[in-house]
């Protein structure tokens, strides 16, 4: 007469529980891992997408208002200088004088007559 099969012992129960837990762990791992991968892919795709074209807008050109000053073309802007009549400007070029023809009155000539 054959022996009655042994009932599952506690060890078998533990193995079953462990297998189920292991399986669930792997399953959830993969599940959440897949979700995370989707988010990263979406972020990467958004970063590499070309910028969306700006909505067309109508630009109205208006003339730039001219400054309320006088613009002088072709030369240096007028400069007001104060000078002492007795002291010629330092920028005055060296003048040669005709012997005997003194300037008198102190200082040098304020300007020169020349052909124009």
């Amino acid at each position, binding site marked *: 007469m054959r022996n009655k099969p042994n009932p599952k012992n506690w060890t078998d129960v533990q193995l079953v529980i462990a297998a189920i837990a292991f399986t669930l762990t792997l399953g959830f791992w993969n599940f959440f891992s897949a979700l995370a991968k989707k988010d990263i892919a979406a972020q990467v795709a958004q970063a590499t997408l070309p910028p969306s074209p700006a909505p067309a807008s109508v630009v109205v050109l208006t003339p730039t208002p001219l400054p309320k000053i*006088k613009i*002088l073309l*072709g*030369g*240096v*802007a*007028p*400069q*007001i*200088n*104060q*000078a*002492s*009549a007795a002291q010629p400007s330092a920028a005055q*070029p*060296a*003048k*040669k*004088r*005709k012997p*005997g*023809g*003194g*300037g*008198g*009155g*102190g*200082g*040098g*000539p*304020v*300007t*020169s*007559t*020349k*052909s*124009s």
Partner: protein
Amino acid sequence: MFQRLEFRAMGCAMLAFIDDDSPAALDALHQVPDWFEEWEQALSRFREGSELNRLNRLAGLSVHVSEILWAAFQTALTAEQATGGLVTPTVLDAVVMAGYDRPFELSARDQIQLRTIPKGWAEVSPLSAVTWDESSRSIRLPPDVRLDLGGSAKGWAAHQAAERLAPYGSALVDAGGDIAITGLRADGERWLIGISDPFDQGADMDVLRLGRCGVATSGKDRRRWLRDGVLSHHIIDPRTGFPAETDVMTATVIAPTVMVAEAAAKAALILGAKAGLDWIESDPSLSGVLILDDGSSLYSRGMEKYL
């Protein structure tokens, strides 16, 4: 203490002095460039829209002109009468034929432009060919006559500016070498004015001591160009229609007004050394010095009181 203003107008460096440092004098001095701008717009032949160019384009018709153009025209008329026709504004076609058909860039060191100039000649009509009516302030040019007021306009403008500044103090206006002086300086001294050396740019041959008067220099040392390998210049002899053949390099004249001085200097240059000096001395109100091609100088008898 005087105020000094530099600016550019009419193709030249301009200089204005007023021997007073009050705010009113300074304000008046600030207005001088605007005055010149207004005058240049009316009188320049190099501005397409100038009133002078409009008058020239309407040759053959009687044209009502502004007070500015009328005054400058009358100044040119006086100059022609005083010089026996040697100085006239009817030389425009002749001076253009000679090659002076565009503004000179004064920044060029030697004032010489090398160009190919077409051969040509234009007869110079006397100003008497022009008719005018003072009551309607109108001018009618003959169809073949065009005016160039460039020579006389600078002197006229210098005189006008100086007279406008005069109420604020003793004034001096230098329009590219044509100088108007309204009186002695505030300290009672005379103004010192150099006579530029045509052979040494930046140096003076003499220094003049001047009170109320005008002084101007005409010369062939500037605004000149090569034509067929020959140096040409802008001073036209109306008797020939060509640039004046003269042994005078520059002529400087002192006169009661700068307009008279400018016309007299040009006439003396065209006439040449001997005739030019005789012509200056024939008028006691004129004094002058001629610097000749060889570098020598001829002084009129009246010059000693200014040296």
